[in-house]
């Protein structure tokens, strides 16, 4: 280890095995690596549909628990956590609309955490859209292919945000 000491500060180069392996000759070209990664994702899609159905049911159950007691922070975190999972996995698996709508629901949960009043009608509307987005033919569509639906949902979120701001 070489050091450039400046009082208690030590600066030194690091060459890990990861760096060494990445720089060695050969390996998988980027384009091929991306194709293979996408193929692996595609392999998981049948199982993902099952996971998505189950996750949606768990999420809806968590929301039902929350709406009976919106001030319960652990219930809020539970519903929010399940919603985040839907958002995070959706786009990766090609369900962009699921990510789009669950992202809006996440905004709603953020608003709740910030002190907004629980808006049952708003959340139910978004959940209905989410369930729709998880099924054919909507599951293969992008948000920009459903402008009326997405703009309507956006308006709902903006309304919630403005209520929080007040």
């Amino acid at each position, binding site marked *: 280890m070489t050091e450039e000491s400046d009082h208690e500060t030590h600066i*030194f180069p690091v060459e890990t095995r990861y760096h060494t392996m990445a720089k060695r000759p050969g390996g998988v070209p*980027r384009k091929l690596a991306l194709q293979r*990664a996408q193929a692996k994702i595609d392999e998981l899609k049948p199982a993902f549909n099952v996971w998505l159905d189950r996750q949606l049911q768990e999420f809806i159950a968590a929301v039902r628990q929350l709406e009976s007691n919106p001030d319960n922070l652990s219930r809020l975190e539970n519903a929010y956590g399940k919603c985040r999972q839907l958002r995070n996995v959706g786009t990766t698996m090609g369900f962009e609309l699921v990510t789009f709508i669950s992202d809006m629901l996440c905004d709603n949960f953020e608003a709740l955490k910030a002190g907004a009043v629980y808006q049952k009608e708003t959340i139910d509307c978004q959940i209905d859209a989410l369930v729709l987005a998880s099924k054919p033919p909507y599951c293969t569509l992008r948000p920009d292919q459903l402008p009326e639906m997405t703009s309507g949902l956006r308006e709902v979120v903006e309304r919630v945000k403005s209520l929080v701001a007040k």
Partner: protein
Amino acid sequence: MLRGFGANKLLEVDQSIEVLQALTNQKIDIMICDSQLPPHGALALTRAMRRKGDNQNRTTPVLVMTSDSREGTVKLTRDVGANMVIAKPMSPKSLYDRLAWIAFTQRQFIATATYFGPDRRFKIEGYPNGVGRRKSDKAVEVAAEAGPALGQDDIDSLFGAARSGQT
């Protein structure tokens, strides 16, 4: 995705405590960690990994995945010694490019009383394979943590903006 990239040995754990246990017995090439990994999250895990002096994985590259991409959170992640943050949802392309960037961008390590990790003042020259800097990089200011979520480009720039004392 990692298997598609050619990784043939993956170690998956559900708890950060299991990570620390696993790391005492073996050396890993790279750690990709969810920011919400229970019970303490990726920040505490990365900090513990970097600070433990006898840890053979102390300088191992760390990539943190997060859906909370607010500036304050990204900066905190950088400041515990993570090499890079990747915003979720992620695509094969976004993951591959960040992994490649970590591999091909040499960064010295800094050890001080309060920080151990890759140099946060590195000069960013752009990401491999055409993922370049944005013109707005130089204008990045670190704001209060309650700001809006950042896009991946902004996260990348925040890591890069530490050069020349900009953050």
